[in-house]
């Protein structure tokens, strides 16, 4: 049947089973919103700002395992997505961004709200497209979804010229399974193109790795974000237990290795636990799955795990030997490779002595009670962990609160922790929480933030209120940019340059102004009462902003300086 481009786009989303879209309308994308008006089966979440929509689509994807979809108009609408696209890219989150551009005859003329968004997003998308011809629209959208979700997932942008959204073309509903049989996907599939496929693992390498792991006396496992994306948490855990190996997580790996497991050594790297970092320094085999050895993990790549044979499992060949030279590696899907390893590792290992050594170092940082009576981050997080339901989804912003939350909470399942690990986007958390709550309407969503991060995108409280999303925001309010201040304290002779936030707003009042519950908290008893109240009043559909006053000089411990040896703690 003949449909206009906007109808084709909506139908292509329906082919994918998309029922939720985050976005913001504007001039160039008007036709698409007109089509959306007629399709009640797609729920559109209107955010306060396109950036919020981009993070919400990302949070939705990470918390549901589905593709996030985000709409924005041309020009500023599109560029406002950029930070969100980069955030999704660095953390391999599958989001399809759809923008419209000015009509074809205005392209390149610096028309009103024109920007070369495919050019802008080139370095932060897995692939991007500009659709100039309505006949190519359906094929392009189908390809975009396949590219976003296959192989190593990531964001994709489809920029559609405005005339395409009103021009007509033949459209036929094509079920999702058939999308591999058309257009460029046929070539990508037949050549096993890395953008959409996971390579068949090298069985010889797997045999060799099994051998090394079984012979190892001091193994250390690292659970990276790839374990989450691959859905390989069960296989990974089984392997860790079979090998009886201490297991560290990266920021992105949180949740994929159960936080209550006795083998857990906690986070590794700059703010890694003493147990993780010391184990890394003396292990004889380091087995990393879905971890790209970022500089925040390795710190000094030349001395990282210098005693160890390094084994890397990654779906992306270009992550192998990029930051750390491996001794042996396998490129492919983590789940598949871990299963093959489990078949080969038959005997359960016993590493009691090695574990005794590793766990003689602290897994959790002990934060002392403050003499000035202020709440410590640990006290706040303990109260939250105790009172909120077990499977609470946690989103964070970026900074000290993020590290405290990841250190303190025991994440039990993949997707429970939603945080901007790679790009480190302050202002990510509230948008992501909105996406997570929309995707998990029955779940409890906790948004942990700092006063600096929250100030960036707190406008999304309007979205939280309108859609009755009972998100619980906890602000670690130290009246400063804590993490930057921590560096200034330790490295810059206490020159607190532009990091003191001795200014408004009163976050509790701000929350009330947006129509959600706002509270200012100075002690743990108060906090506990309010947390119970959040549960009791959940059915009112109102979110919460709990502004917790903490000391300005709180620091994240332990800490290893950037580029230093992983066991040279600057702070413990």
């Amino acid at each position, binding site marked *: 049947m003949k449909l206009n481009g906007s109808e084709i786009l909506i139908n292509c989303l329906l082919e994918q089973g998309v029922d939720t879209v985050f976005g913001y309308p504007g001039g160039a994308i008007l036709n698409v919103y007109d089509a959306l008006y007629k399709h009640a089966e797609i729920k559109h979440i209107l955010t306060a700002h396109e950036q919020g929509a981009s993070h919400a689509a990302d949070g939705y994807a990470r918390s549901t395992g589905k593709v996030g979809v985000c709409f924005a108009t041309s020009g500023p609408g599109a560029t406002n997505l950029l930070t969100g696209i980069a955030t999704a890219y660095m953390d391999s989150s599958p989001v399809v961004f759809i923008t419209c551009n000015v009509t074809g005859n205005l392209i390149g003329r610096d028309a009103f709200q024109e920007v070369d968004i495919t*050019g802008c997003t080139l370095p932060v998308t897995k692939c991007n497209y500009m659709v100039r011809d309505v006949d190519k629209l359906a094929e392009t959208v189908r390809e975009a979804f396949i590219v976003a979700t296959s192989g190593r997932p990531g964001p994709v942008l489809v920029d559609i010229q405005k005339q395409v959204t009103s021009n007509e073309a033949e459209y036929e509903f094509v079920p999702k399974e058939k999308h591999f049989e058309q257009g460029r996907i046929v070539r990508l599939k037949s050549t096993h193109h*890395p953008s959409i496929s996971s390579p068949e693992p090298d069985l010889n390498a797997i045999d060799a790795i099994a051998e090394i792991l079984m012979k190892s006396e001091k193994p250390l496992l690292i659970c990276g974000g790839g374990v989450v994306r691959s859905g390989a948490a069960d296989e990974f855990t089984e392997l860790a237990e079979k090998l009886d190996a201490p297991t560290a997580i990266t920021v992105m790996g949180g949740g994929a290795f159960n936080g209550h497991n006795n083998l857990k050594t906690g986070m590794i790297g700059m703010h890694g636990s003493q147990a993780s970092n010391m184990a890394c320094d003396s292990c004889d085999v380091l087995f990393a799955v879905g971890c790209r050895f970022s500089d925040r993990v390795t710190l000094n790549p030349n001395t990282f795990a210098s005693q160890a044979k390094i084994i890397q499992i990654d779906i*992306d*060949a*270009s992550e*192998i030997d990029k930051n750390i030279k491996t001794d042996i590696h396998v490129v492919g899907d983590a789940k598949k490779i871990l299963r093959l390893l489990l078949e080969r590792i038959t005997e359960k290992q016993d590493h009691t002595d090695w574990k005794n050594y590793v766990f003689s170092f602290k897994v959790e940082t002990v934060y002392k009670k403050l003499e000035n009576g202020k709440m410590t981050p640990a006290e706040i997080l303990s109260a939250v962990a105790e009172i909120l339901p077990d499977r609470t989804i946690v989103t964070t912003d970026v900074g000290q609160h993020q590290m405290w939350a990841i250190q303190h909470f025991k994440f039990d399942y993949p997707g429970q922790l939603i945080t901007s690990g790679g790009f480190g986007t302050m202002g990510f958390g509230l948008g992501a929480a909105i996406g997570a709550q929309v995707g998990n309407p029955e779940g409890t969503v906790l948004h942990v933030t700092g006063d600096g991060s929250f100030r960036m995108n707190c406008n999304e409280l309007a979205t939280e209120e309108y859609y009755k999303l009972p998100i619980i925001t906890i602000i670690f309010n130290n009246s400063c940019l804590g993490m930057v201040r921590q560096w200034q304290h330790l490295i810059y002779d206490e020159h607190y340059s532009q990091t003191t936030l001795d200014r408004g707003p009163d976050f509790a009042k701000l929350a009330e102004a947006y129509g959600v519950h706002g509270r200012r908290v100075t002690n743990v008893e108060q906090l506990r009462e309010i947390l119970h109240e959040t549960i009791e009043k959940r059915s009112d559909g109102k979110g919460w902003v709990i502004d917790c006053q903490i000391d300005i000089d709180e620091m994240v411990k332990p800490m290893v300086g950037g580029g230093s040896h992983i066991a040279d703690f600057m702070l413990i």
Partner: protein
Amino acid sequence: MDEQNKIRRYTIVTSMDNEAGVLSQLAHLFSRRGHNIETIAAGWTTDRKIMRFTIEIFTDEAKMKLLCDQLRKLVPIHYVEILEPQKSIRRELMLVRVNAADRATRNEIIQIANIFRGSVVDITHDSLTLQIVGDDQKNSAFETLLREYGIIELARTGIVAIERGELKKHDDD
């Protein structure tokens, strides 16, 4: 120096879908991964829908391998190969306009061009334009020899390269 860290010239051949923006995707990947393109040349293959690029860069083996893996991830890319210098033919075309105001100079220049198997493609009262095909070293040598006459303008296409065919071996070899 460790083999992996030895910097040398690499010739990369890749083919991509012939569509808007592929050149910028390709070039951008080199720059954002910290590589400087020495030469780049592009043209159709037997299939007009596919473009073939020859790119040369200076880098080391480890970075080269990584770059190839990063290139292979680009959706429009069909294949990426490194051509080994001994097993490939590398050529570029150079056009050079040089001062030649009198007959003696013109003759001299034409003689040099003949030695290099170059040809005269344009002539005026006071200049000659020559065309020469060769690898970068030959073309640079030619350029050096012409410098004393005064080069007015020079244009090089950048290297295009192709793998040598394999000779069939005789049984008694």
